[in-house]
């Protein structure tokens, strides 16, 4: 079984990692032998593993590297500021405000394909102004129209001070996603008391407390401290409330609900099993679908569709309605494949169906949806004719990965190479004319791009893209099926998968390639890696070797079931632990106003 070969692969990868560490250690060691000797020996071991690994029915059970048990290795755990999406969902759940106030914040800096990378994001004056504005608007709206959402008491009947105390305690717990400390409660209560003493205006005073909370780092950021590091290994288990937030933001893009906070309170999240139970519960909630889409839209670059322009002379039928249909198809298909269908990655990648409406089906030239249709007329469309497969041939993807007036084997190949195989490609050298060759009657796409394979200056990189991209030639720049290309030549959709761990070889067309890559360990590994980046708001590091091993094992044990992968993401050391902060205790510069 192909799915078991990852074990050999991971052995090679792990051995190489260990090897590189060994080499550098040797280099530092004056008394050690020449690094090359040591390296050569290790290399031999790796080769032996590979050569003796049976590729028949009974492969060796993968062995978790021994050093994984020596020490917990969670990798970095940077604090994270809520993204606009997370903010919008959070205030909807916290306050019932569904106007998406976060949309007025500056957009997230995008890194490695996702909107939440902790390293690239920054705060400027305009962020602070907008947080302030949002807090003021939301609080005044709450106090005017929906007091019961934030105030569980009536100041007139229980008294202003008591009602304030309860509000600080109860709303504060939801806002900060954990109980307030005694110090925090006292501080807010003092703040309230001083304001209230000025004019006996309860709403003004409690409103200001709420505004502070909604601009607090405890609300805007997910700050984690962890339990005390009792054994002094520099790694701390996250508190159960910290785990609750990790769960809800990963699986819902929002704050924990009452059940999750209660689970944290009673200690249900102190064990991996307890975390898994809650993860599965969260996955059953519809919020999990929007969170999954938030990941997949970014990974697949479908969001870019809104900005894609087509040459109106060549594609007069391209309009917003078509774009919306294509987006809807991808979203509905992803949700169906993961939550309603078989749930496995190969199906997501290469399914013989999609979810479309009659108009889009006609655009593709396939039969309209059959069976039950949703309110927008979308339903299951069979792709059994062999012209299309899974995400690979969606109109959204084909349209984004095209030029305004023609298909683009380069963009399409690059998309496969970078998004699905997690390979990094350098951009073309600075002073090269990268205009796609003009469409010429009588010249096939393949012939027009011949320079890429003939010229050694181009072929190094383009052999990683073009032979993948040519397989998509059956789809025009709007994703429609065709057998004649722009230049009037018959489409030749054959291609070749090259430079992969395990999927190299000729392919007949895009469907054949999709089916091949759907079974590729490199693609499976890449999918895990993309989820890991998104889950932890950072790239995979060397410290994540054991985390990645555990995820691979769980994903293959679950036969590539995506929901199982999401649960597995909550089970790793990276998810449950963090490095103990090494505080930078340089004094904070004083400013005059601090003395006020």
């Amino acid at each position, binding site marked *: 079984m192909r799915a078991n070969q990852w074990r050999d692969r991971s052995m090679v990868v792990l051995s190489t990692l260990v090897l590189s560490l060994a080499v550098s250690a040797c280099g530092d060691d004056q008394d050690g032998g020449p690094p090359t000797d040591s390296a050569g020996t290790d290399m031999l071991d790796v080769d032996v593993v590979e050569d003796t690994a049976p590729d028949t029915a009974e492969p060796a059970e993968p062995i978790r590297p021994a050093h994984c048990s020596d020490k917990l290795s969670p990798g*970095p755990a*940077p*604090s994270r*500021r809520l993204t606009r999406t997370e903010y919008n969902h959070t205030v909807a759940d916290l306050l019932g405000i569904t106007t998406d106030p976060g949309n*007025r914040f*500056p*957009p*997230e*800096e*995008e*890194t490695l394909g996702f909107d939440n*990378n*902790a*390293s690239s*994001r*920054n*705060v*400027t*004056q*305009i*962020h*602070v*102004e907008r947080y*302030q504005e949002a807090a003021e608007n939301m609080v005044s709206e709450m106090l005017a129209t929906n007091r019961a959402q934030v105030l569980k008491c009536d100041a007139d009947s229980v008294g202003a001070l008591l009602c304030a105390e309860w509000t600080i305690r109860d709303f504060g717990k939801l806002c900060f996603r954990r109980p307030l400390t005694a110090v925090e409660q006292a501080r807010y209560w003092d*703040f309230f008391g001083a304001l209230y003493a000025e004019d006996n205006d309860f709403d*003004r005073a409690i409103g*200001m407390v709420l505004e*502070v909370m909604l*601009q*607090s*780092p*405890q609300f805007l*950021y997910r*700050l984690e401290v962890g339990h005390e590091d009792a054994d002094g290994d520099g790694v701390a288990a996250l508190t159960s409330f910290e785990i609750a937030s990790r769960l809800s933001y990963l699986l819902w893009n929002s704050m924990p609900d009452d059940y999750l906070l209660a689970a944290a309170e009673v200690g249900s999240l102190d064990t991996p099993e307890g975390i898994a139970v809650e993860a599965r519960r969260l996955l059953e909630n519809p919020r999990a679908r929007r969170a999954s889409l938030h990941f997949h839209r970014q990974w697949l670059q479908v969001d870019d569709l809104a*900005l894609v*322009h087509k*040459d*109106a*002379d060549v594609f007069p039928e391209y309009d917003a309605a078509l774009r919306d249909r294509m987006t809807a198809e991808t979203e509905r298909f992803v949700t169906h494949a993961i939550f309603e269908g078989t749930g496995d990655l190969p199906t997501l990648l290469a399914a013989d169906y999609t979810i479309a409406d009659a108009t889009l089906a006609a655009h593709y030239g396939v039969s309209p949806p059959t069976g039950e249709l949703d309110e927008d007329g979308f339903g299951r469309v069979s792709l059994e004719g062999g012209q299309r497969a899974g995400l690979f041939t969606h109109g959204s993807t084909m349209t984004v990965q095209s*030029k*305004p*007036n023609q298909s683009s084997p380069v963009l399409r190949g690059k998309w496969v190479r970078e998004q699905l195989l997690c390979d*990094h490609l*350098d*951009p073309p050298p*600075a*002073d090269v*004319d*990268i*205009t796609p060759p003009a469409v010429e009657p009588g010249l096939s796409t393949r012939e027009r791009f011949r320079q890429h394979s003939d010229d050694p200056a181009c072929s190094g990189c383009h052999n990683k893209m073009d032979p993948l991209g040519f397989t998509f030639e059956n789809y025009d720049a709007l994703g429609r099926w065709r057998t004649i290309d722009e230049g009037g030549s018959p489409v030749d959709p054959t291609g070749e998968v090259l430079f992969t761990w395990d999927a190299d070889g000729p392919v007949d067309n895009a469907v054949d390639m999709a089916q091949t890559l759907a079974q590729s360990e490199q693609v499976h590994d890449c999918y895990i890696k993309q989820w890991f980046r998104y889950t932890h708001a950072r790239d995979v590091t060397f410290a994540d070797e054991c985390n990645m091993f555990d995820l691979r094992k769980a994903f293959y044990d679950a036969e590539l079931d995506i929901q199982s992968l999401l649960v597995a993401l909550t089970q790793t050391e990276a998810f449950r632990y963090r*490095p103990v*902060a*090494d*505080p*930078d205790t340089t*004094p*904070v510069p004083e*400013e005059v*106003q601090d003395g*006020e």
Partner: protein
Amino acid sequence: MANNSRFGRRAFLRGAGGVVVALPFLSSLARPARAQGTSVFPKRFIVFFSPNGTVRKHWRPFGGERTFQLGSILEPLEPHRDQLLILKGINMTTAKNGPGDGHQTGMGHMLTARELLTGDLFEGGGGGFVGWAGGISADQEIANHIGQTTKFKSLEFGVQVHGSNVWSRMCYLGANQPLPPENDPRAMFDRVFKDVDADPAALARIRTRRKSVLDMVRQEYKALLPTVDRFDRQKLDQHLTAIREVEKRLDIETTGVTDYCTVPSLPPDIAAPEPSIFMEPERFGDAGRAQMDILVSSLACDLTRVASIQWSQSVSQHVFRNLGITSGHHDLSHEPDDAEDAQDKLVQINRWYAQQFAYLLDKLSSVQEGDGTLLDNTVVLWCNELGKGNSHTRDDVPYVLAGSAGGYLDTGRFLEFPLTNHNDLLLTLIQAMGVPANQFGDPIYSNGPLTRLLA
């Protein structure tokens, strides 16, 4: 512009759902003479960016230093020729170094004149990844000095800027700290003018409240800093610094409407919250002009002295359907020099940007300041991340300056420079604003100010 009625603005505020305080305007006092130097009017600095290089043959003026004739691209600037400095031959030499592809280095070096960081944030050229810019941008360097007494240290206007990455940011507070532009004219209007002419008593109440709330918030950030590691500290410290900036400016009084300072009225549909159309490609010019109206008023009202307006971003694919063009700008910019049809379109596009630049200069000239105009006390830098698009060269970048910075620059000239680094152009402008500096950006490439520009 001076004729915009109060009624129009009030109507706008109502339409936009802003807070309407139906109380008298502040009395129209004369502008306080805060500025240093000979003029009582402060100096201002504006950056105007358009992307993807130019067509040199049609950008370049003909003729002599003062007798030049504008080419097809810059022809719309003819009414302002006496206020121009057209500079040929200035190279972004630093942008040949360090990580990043052509557009990335062009954009990130354009105002910082130093190498990008070797971060792992974005895919870049040269075999790896690239980070944000490696230092402060010239506009922010200037703002740090001349922007301390105004309501806003600087204002960053965007016109349909897409993306949030090293290709789409030009202003930096410092290394690794990009400053995002605001694309929404309505949001910008609210931000800039919401306090101008507000009822003083109501304003005082709001300020007291904000001060009190922000003070609490600031203390929370401050208390966290010594407890977190270096990475988190850097991020939280940025947040704390931004809070301090906002807090510091709460006290700054705005002058209110005066002879000089009027509040612009925006086209109602651009200003309408729903549907928001300022990002629709067809409204590119309208959104930009609304932004420029706000920009000029913010300077005239002395709410800020430093501003930038960024049209789209490097690698812009804007489609100029209004010019009968159906291909994306970036795709066109890659066409070879002998592709006449594409070059004609690029000339049209760059000429269109010149028309927008002329609009900005018109507006600045329409504000009287003493015997001169707002433009006289300003210098506008029109810059581009590339020399030309098809080669991605960062040599001979098309720079145009407008305004003399209060007589500091000798305008009305076309100047050619041999082997001159853009560090020194930026340095000259920094000095023109009265900011003490001997070099800017990477010191290796900073040789001193371009004295030929000076009056």
